[in-house]
Structures are given as C-alpha cells and as structure tokens.
C-alpha cells in the first residue's frame, strides 16, 4: 500500500526537555492507526508537529511524497491534513452550521465552493455526524458530546485525506463512545486515513489496524493491537516501574511549564 505519511527522525525540544525524540513512522493509505502512551508521552505534541501547530526541532515529515516539514498549519490543511482538538475549540460566536461552513470554505476543498455550496456541504457533514438538528443553534449551546461531534464535523468538512483525532472519545459516556466508534469507522470507509490518540484501550483495540506506542517522547513499540497488548515494554511503560514514571512525569511537567505551558 502507498505511504500516506512518512515521519523521519522527528524531534521536538522545549528548552531542555525533549518531548518527541527521534520518532520514525510510516502510515499507509486507508489505515486506522491508534497512537497510545502514558500521560506526558508526547502524543499530542507529536500530532501538533504533524499538523504544523508546532514547528519541529529536527526531522522530516513527508505527505504523499511531498515534504511538508516547513509548511504552516493552514497550508497542510489545504493539502488534505485535518485534525480535531482534545479540548474542543468551537468558534463560539458562530452557529454550528457556520463553524462547519468555515471549514468547507477554507479547507482542501474550499477553493471550489461558493457560499451556498459550502452551506450544503456543512449540512451534509452535520447529518453524517448526527448534528443535523442543531445546525442553526449557536455553537456555545452544545453539550460536551455535541462539541466533540462539532470538532469532527469541522475537521471532515475540509475534505481531508488524512485525519488526526486527538482523544475523540474523552468525556463521552458508553453509548456515545459506541456511536463515535462507528462514526470513526465510517470516516475510514469513505477512504480517509486516520491517526487517533486515545486512552480508552478497548476502543483502540477495537478499531485500530495498527498501534504506535509513545513513551517519554520515543517510539516504544509498533504493531497490531494483539501484538501491542502482549508487548512487555508496553506493559512496563503503563504499569511497571511506577516510582520512576511518577518522577519522570513530574520532570516532564516542569519542563513543559518552563516552555510555556504547552
């Protein structure tokens, strides 16, 4: 299968702290890749580097044979990369529909669309994620589950081919988790490649084709969900050596605060 994304020796330093350390990975077209790791492992930083929210300190990112390491987030979006945020970032002054319209107008499919076409596209995506009935409501009136869906809708309306989901299930109840999982599968069924960060292991195991484990900023393991649960290093990273982990975590936090609270 053709490579959708190639990450080579990616590194991010915040002052003295190395949040992402020499990570190399390859994502194939049409895959669902779960990105897991203990708190502070560098998962969100890794995604921020790939989407351009953060500039990397070293390494290279290649998307569909094109080097995108230096590109701004909006340029990467226009090429077909889209993301959701762990903490939803709605445009609170806009309606639900306008939130999604903005993405349909400026994302990778945006240049082709007029305002009415973008509105139609927004409606379509909102129906898809189950927010159709709330289209005309102000975004600030949505519940947590609604905001999560809005994140997803806004991400999808930009017509991406590669989608990053940062903890799409956090804060959801059991029923909502189930619905979201089938939604994520339906994203893949439409031909998109998905990289998602998640803490709910059952969910990760259920829908990932492949799992990448980060710990202390380095790639600890990579493989099918079955291989990962049996991996001794992964078990140790999550469960073993608890004292050391706490100490490392404290160090990490301190370093991050020094680097500007990211």
């Amino acid at each position, binding site marked *: 299968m053709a490579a959708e994304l190639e990450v080579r020796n990616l590194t991010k330093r915040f002052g003295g702290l190395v949040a992402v350390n020499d990570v190399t990975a390859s994502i194939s077209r049409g895959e669902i890749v779960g990105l897991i790791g203990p708190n502070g492992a560098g998962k969100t930083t890794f995604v921020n580097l790939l989407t351009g929210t953060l500039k990397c300190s070293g390494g290279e990112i290649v998307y569909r044979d094109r080097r995108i390491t230096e590109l701004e987030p*909006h340029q990467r979006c226009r090429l077909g990369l*889209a993301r959701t945020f762990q903490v939803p970032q*709605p445009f609170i002054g806009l309606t639900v529909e306008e939130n999604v319209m*903005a993405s349909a*107008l400026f994302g990778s499919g945006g240049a082709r669309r007029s305002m009415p076409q973008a509105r139609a596209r927004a409606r379509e995506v909102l129906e898809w994620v189950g927010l*159709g009935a709330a*289209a005309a409501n102000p975004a600030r009136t949505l519940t947590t589950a609604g905001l999560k869906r809005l994140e997803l809708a806004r991400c999808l309306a*930009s017509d991406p081919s590669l989608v990053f989901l940062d903890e799409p299930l956090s804060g959801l109840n059991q029923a909502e988790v189930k619905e979201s999982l089938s939604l994520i599968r339906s994203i893949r069924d439409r031909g998109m490649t998905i990289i998602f960060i998640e803490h709910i292991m059952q969910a990760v195991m259920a829908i990932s084709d492949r799992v990448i484990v980060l710990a202390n900023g380095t790639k600890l393991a990579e493989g099918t969900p079955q291989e990962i649960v049996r991996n001794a290093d992964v078990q140790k990273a999550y469960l073993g050596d608890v004292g050391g982990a706490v100490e490392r975590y404290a160090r990490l936090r301190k370093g991050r605060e020094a680097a500007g609270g990211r």
Partner: protein
Amino acid sequence: MSHAGGQAAPAMPGRAVMLRTIGEPAGLAVLLAAVLALPFFAGAYGSRVGGTILMYIALAQSWNLIGGYVGLMSLAHSAFFGLGAMGATILLLNGAPVLLAAAGGILLASVLALLIGAPTLRLQGHYFVIATLIVSEALLNGARNLNILGFHGAISQNIGAFTGLQDLSAVEYNRLFYYIMAGLAGLAMLLVTLVERSRWGLALKAIRDAEGAASAIGIPVAGVKLAIFVLSAAIAAAVGITSSIWLGTFDTTSAFDLAVTFQVIVMVFLGGRGTVWGPVIGVFLVFTLNEFIGVEFAEISTIISGVIVVAIVLLQPDGLIEVMRRGPAALSPRVVIGNFRRYKVD
C-alpha cells in the same frame, strides 16, 4: 430546505422576512437620500456636525473590522489617523497637489501598519493591546520631534493655504468635506457589509473565537490578520487626512490623540461590535449623549456618560443592536441578568 433550516424558521416569521426583503433596500435608499440631501437643508454648521458624525462612522467601522470582527483590541487607530494626516501635511507643505498628498498619507500609514502589524499581530491577548498602546505613544513622540522638509512636529502647521480650496465659501467648503466624509463612511460600511456576507466574515470571526482551530481548517491566520490591520489603518489614515485638511491645520498632539481611539472603541462596543449597523448606532448614541448631557449637566457630564457606558457594556455586552434585533425581549430582567452573569469568572 432540510429540517435544520425549518427549525430556524419559527424564530423569523414570514412577515418579518417580507419586511426584510422589501424594507431593507427601501430603508437604505431613504437613508442614503437623507445623507446626501442634508447639506442642502442644514447649512454650514449642519454640514460640520453631519460631517463629524460621518467621520466617526468611518472610524468606528474601520476599527470594527479589526476590533469587532477579528477581536483584536488595537489601540493604534489614532496613530494611523495621525500618520495619514502627517504624511499628507508634509507633502502639501512641499507643493504636492491635494489628491497626491492624500494618497501619500494613506501610503505612509499603510506601510507603517504593515511594519507594525507584522511583529505585534503575533502577540496574544493583552500583549497585543499593550504593544499597540506603546506604538501609538512612540509614534506621537516621534512625530512631535520630527523636523523634515519644512515640517515641524512641535508646532501647529497651517495647511489651509496649500490645498487650493481657500476660495470656497463656508457653505461650499463644509459641504465638500461633508461629502468626502460621507464617501469614506459609505466605503467603510460597504467593506464591512462585503466582509459580513462573504467567506472572509466567517474567517475573521473564526480567528476571533479560536485562532488555532481557524488555522487548522485552512484559514491563513497571520495573513488575514495583517491584511485587515492594514486595511483598517488605511481607512483611519484617509479619515485623518480629510479631517486635518478640513480643519486647515495639522497639530501633532491632537492628530495622534489616543482619546480618538478610545472614543471610537466605546462607540463600537456600545452599538455592537462585529456587526454592520452596531457601530453606526454607537456613534449616534455617543453624539446624542454628549449633546444632551454635555449641555444639561455640564459639570458632571463625564461621570454620567461613564456610568451609562459601563451599564450598557455590563448589561448588553453585545451592544444596543441586540435590543433593536430582539426588541423588548432583550431588555427582560432574565436576559439582562444572564448577560451580567457572563462576566462571572469561573
């Protein structure tokens, strides 16, 4: 129409839609006719007052672009007003024709807006506000100490003799500047309307609400912010140039006066920031307050207008345009208390 649109419909009954489609263009036509006809009925004094109101509408709308739509509390507006006027003054003193001088002034302010905006627009929240405050103070002091090409920043410069307009009668003179200000106000209104109706309106509001998310959905945040900052500065400069030529003198301290910025911000906030008509309402409100309170309660006028401004900002944070849009419902105690609670820090 999908059921989502159907849901929106009850909030806007058919009669109101009809009133909008027929009433809006008709209302605009009447308003436009009134604005254009006013100088012929109001004489020189009426043209002066009307022109000043139009000047503030242009200023308020140009600030609304950056402050209301993008949510950037720029305090540099009066600096661009002053820079434009100063640039035009220098050119006039050196024999440039009026239109060329005006173009030069706008160019000067735009280039400086570009140079100032590029670094400061990267700052977040309060840091940007402070940076623009420092910039406007620095520019004022720089202008005061400037001595080039016959321009002396420390003293008032008479430019009335260089414009070639001194032969006009008082009525004609004021009427001319009334129409120039009307043109600038109309241009600013048109720009805001175009922004509001296009994809760029969504882009500006998206940047205002969540910059990171805006950039993640493909909006070139830095470029859009800079473009709007420069555009806003260029309009402020054009207004400043018109104002100083109308006055016939350029005085650095009053051209760069921060009070203009604050007055404009108050107007935009009172009327409704990030809307097309809010700033217009705000301008009229402030002028009315100044006329009434300034005359009736001269000694304590600033206290009274201060209290009114604070009350409106606390109780109608979206501006008086909300009252016009939603009618008496916007004044109900439940809504007003709800508005007030939005300020609660949690």
